[in-house]
């Protein structure tokens, strides 16, 4: 109460402003004495007359695109959404890159082959890539013979791929283990394509053989001869 008394502006006191506590800049339009303007300070000070309401501001501008819109449809990503949510994705990296040889699913930290390390420690670049001269190629002259065991293990192919490749080229002679696939000219994209097509055909053959085998087994089961004998034990006709 005391402080209010001290603050009270004496309208005719020579010490006070002739306009009282009001700023001379702001024109006083309302005779009732209630504040109906919004004064914004800061970089761009402004005075907005807001009518009969206190603290009334201009509403924010209408935005065409808000979260109320189905943004997936707006950006035409429904196809991607149904693609990823329709089927269950396989977890492993090898399922995303089925054509790549080698073991892909292990963590990259094990053999320091992470993509993150390529970003963290950028490789030396900016030099022109030139074919090696014969003198430089001499550095790649190798001794005949197989690699030591420990290095062969590191470069082993995953068991799944190994199996299919082994069956595919089982008639090839003189090919050491892990070398079942023949060398192809990878510089030609056509031959590269053929490799994949061939594999597909091979898979079809496998499926057909399997079905044939099963049919045969069923037949044997229903035949009168069937009495626990293996096919090799059956008497010859």
């Amino acid at each position: 109460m005391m402080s209010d008394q001290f603050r009270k502006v004496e309208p005719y006191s020579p010490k006070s402003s002739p306009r009282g506590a009001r700023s001379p800049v702001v024109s006083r339009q309302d005779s009732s004495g209630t504040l109906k303007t919004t004064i914004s300070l800061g970089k761009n000070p402004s005075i907005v007359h807001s009518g009969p309401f206190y603290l009334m501001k201009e509403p924010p501008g209408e935005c065409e695109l808000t979260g109320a819109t189905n943004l997936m449809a707006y950006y035409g990503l429904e196809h991607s959404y149904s693609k990823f949510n329709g089927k269950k994705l396989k977890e492993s990296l090898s399922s995303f890159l089925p054509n790549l040889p080698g073991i892909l699913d292990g963590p990259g930290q094990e053999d320091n082959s992470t993509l993150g390390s390529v970003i963290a420690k950028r490789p030396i670049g900016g030099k022109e890539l030139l074919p090696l001269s014969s003198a430089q190629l001499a550095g790649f002259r190798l001794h005949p013979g197989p690699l030591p065991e420990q290095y062969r293990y590191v470069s082993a192919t995953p068991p799944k791929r190994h199996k299919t490749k082994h069956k595919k080229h089982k008639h090839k002679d003189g090919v050491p283990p892990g070398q079942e696939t023949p060398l192809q000219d990878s510089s030609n994209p056509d031959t590269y394509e053929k490799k994949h097509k061939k594999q597909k055909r091979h898979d079809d053959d496998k499926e057909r053989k399997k079905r044939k085998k099963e049919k045969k087994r069923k037949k044997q089961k229903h035949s009168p001869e069937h009495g626990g004998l293996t096919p090799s034990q059956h008497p010859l006709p």
Partner: protein
Amino acid sequence: MSSPLENLETQLEMFIENVRQIRIIVSDFQPQGQSVLNQKIQSLVTGLQEVDKLKSQVHDIHVPTEVFDYIDQGRNPQLYTKDCIDKALAKNEEVKGKIDSYKRFKSHLLSELSKTFPNEIAKYKAIRGGE
């Protein structure tokens, strides 16, 4: 005409195939394989040159670094895309829910206020253009 990404993919696959073949040659090296090996090493250089040439065609493609984490952990990078889509959809639904709730709240508040302060709300609506 295939896209720049397809070109790059083909080149990289050919490069990897070349490396695989070199591995086969050197894993049980035969003396007569030296010329083939030299040829393969030269084709490695050519392969790198081809990949380098394609660099300019894909410079505007940005890859989130989080995808690299998935790949480094031996996980399918499509899982990252799926996670992003799921998160975006959840956030979209959440924001839509908020907007709808605020709209309902506003209309309810106005109707209730107009019961108690009919004159003021009429003035307010006149200022706001009948909102």
